[in-house]
């Protein structure tokens, strides 16, 4: 499969980090691809990538920027993500928006474990990526990836809604190249 999946009509060349996705595709297709089932996969992925229901794990400032993204001006529903689920069992995507501290660490792990597969995690903002301005603190976890695996990192303090959307589109591109049925068992 080639990397040609356009999101909202934006061509592939407009995105950064295409190399990473190409390597990902190569790895997935290392054992060959089933012609029929991979077409079914494309259909499934088209649907999945356009209805990613997020769970907002908002602990601080970035949560407000997410609210701004969800409101009328920026309108996250253009990406099919306006259905925020507060129950982890109904969510596909966890957006970690804010600082993660020691007291919270077991709880975010528990919420992540309660989410059904396939599931994705976006680390929004400097704190979720690395601890941000509080990196030297005694109570701050230096990056949410110490606790759960992360798919997309969105830098900023807090990231603008536009950067959030860019990150979410990167996630959609990642979802679009995945294989569910067409993947040959090794």
């Amino acid at each position: 499969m080639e990397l040609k999946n356009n999101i909202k009509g934006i061509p592939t060349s407009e995105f950064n980090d295409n190399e990473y996705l190409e390597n990902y595709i190569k790895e997935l297709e290392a054992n060959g691809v089933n012609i029929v089932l991979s077409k079914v996969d494309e259909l499934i992925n088209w649907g999945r990538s356009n209805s990613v229901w997020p769970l907002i794990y908002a602990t601080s400032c970035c949560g407000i920027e997410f609210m701004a993204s969800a409101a009328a001006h920026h309108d996250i529903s253009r990406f099919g993500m306006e259905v925020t689920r507060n129950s982890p069992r109904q969510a596909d995507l966890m957006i970690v928006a804010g600082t993660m501290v020691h007291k919270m660490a077991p709880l975010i792990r528990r919420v992540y474990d309660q989410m059904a597969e396939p599931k994705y995690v976006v680390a929004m903002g400097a704190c979720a990526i690395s601890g941000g301005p509080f990196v030297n603190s005694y109570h701050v976890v230096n990056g949410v990836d110490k606790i759960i695996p992360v798919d997309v990192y969105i830098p900023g303090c807090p990231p603008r809604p536009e950067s959030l959307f860019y990150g979410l589109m990167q996630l959609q591109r990642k979802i679009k190249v995945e294989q569910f049925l067409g993947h040959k068992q090794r």
Partner: protein
Amino acid sequence: MENIKKLILNTVPTAVIEEKQKLTVTVDSNKLHLLAKTLRDNAELPFDMLVKLIGMDRGEELGVNYLLCSSTDLSKEIVLKTGTTDRVNPLLYSVTDLFETAHFNEREVYALLGIRFINNPDMRKFFLNADWNGYPLRKDYDANPELNPLSLVSLEMVDIAPRIMETADGKLVEENVNIFEDDDYIINIGPQHPSTHGVMHFRTSLDGEIVKKIDVHSGYIHRGIEKLSENLTYPQILHFTDRLDYLSANINRHGLCMCVEKAGEIEVPERAQYIRTIMDELNRIDSHLLAWACQTNDLGATTAFIYGMREREVILHIFEKICGGRLIINQNVIGGVMFDIYNEFQKDVKSFIVYMRGKLVEYDRFFSHNVIALGRMIGIGNMSKEDAISYAVTGPAGRGSGWSCDIRKHQPYALYDKVDFKEIIRYEGDSYARYMNRLDEIEESLHIIEQLIDNIPAGDICAKTKAIIKLPEGEYYSRVEACRGEFGVFIESRGDKTPYRLKFRSPSMALVSAMPLICKNEKISDFIGIGGSMDYVIPDIDR
């Protein structure tokens, strides 16, 4: 204040009175409660509001500073200091029976400094887990991460509170009390719940759908800002203030800048004062709009949420044009502001004022008199004026209970003594009074901006400061009116370029500490609505 000094010496003859930035009284730990009670109950000028309770590691002794002020005139202030040299088992007397707001603050001091308070009904650690090793704000704290490793094991909730009580014959008794009764039905609201406005954990016991008791657990976003600040220079600390209560970012930063400017005797140019005041008021409108939007959303009106966010976006665009930030606006610096206004700033703000006035009418028409909204706000979450003072609940919530507590009126800073504005006070004390207060305050803020926007004088935007700002030795306090109430800064300087101790007074902590009181005997569904009307921001509490 001369009479107050006499009163202090009559009550405690050994008290040491000093005239610093504030009148400072140092007393022995066993006399503090008596003195605080006398000051609170004196008829001439009752000091009945505990503004800040600051735990301190003073080197050889551990101590507490209490900033008291009078609820009738917030500019009358007095500082009480006490301490103990016992670093192994430090004990002080609690003032929780005098000022309810001390309860959470004393628990915070226990978690961060290890001082336990005799007669506090509940001496659990506030921010940190019970098994946390060491007391972070002590100067000899061992920050080795191996002592407190990251654990992913969920802890059992233990509803047993240790405490130390003094019996009638003066003996100290350590005991454990159960917070809930054995057959209580308890539900957890939070820490990750969309309606708690952040990561707050309310353990709520219910009788049917009536709330019986609420136990507040905090610290799920405790970042240790006060400890971090002790190793940073003053300009470096500024960015932390924005991330406390991020919705009143500019005002918090104004508070810290003012404190440093007062201590370092830095004169702020008038143009900077104008820009600061206008930005503060725009920030207040922004915050109140978001509060309005979230409260309506909590009451089930999703459309209203979209409306509030739409108007807020207009302000954010002005912020973006002036300094590039939307939520965190790095505008204030020590000595002035970082960026000058742009050419069309006045035009943008004036057109916003006209636009916003029209929208306020619209809000009033479609939500403020809606029968469902009225039914869920009027008479719900009542707080009396006495409770508001005892819990130190300031801001729109305190003024909704009939307490005049606007720092802008009582202790004018920046340009607030030059502009004409009303302090919005309502006397009902319910959710609706707090709701209406916010909408009216938006109108007052527009009025303040209107008076200033055409008169911005020419000149510098920032005073020249030394490359390294060192504050002279001393204790410095400043208080500003943030969007949720009074925001305070305390700096103890030992003449260094970094503060020896920095403490922020967060308005939201007082709001949350009053939640168990005002939600008692209300329905569980109204708990969410009351929370929306109090409008607390959790990272402000946890710091």
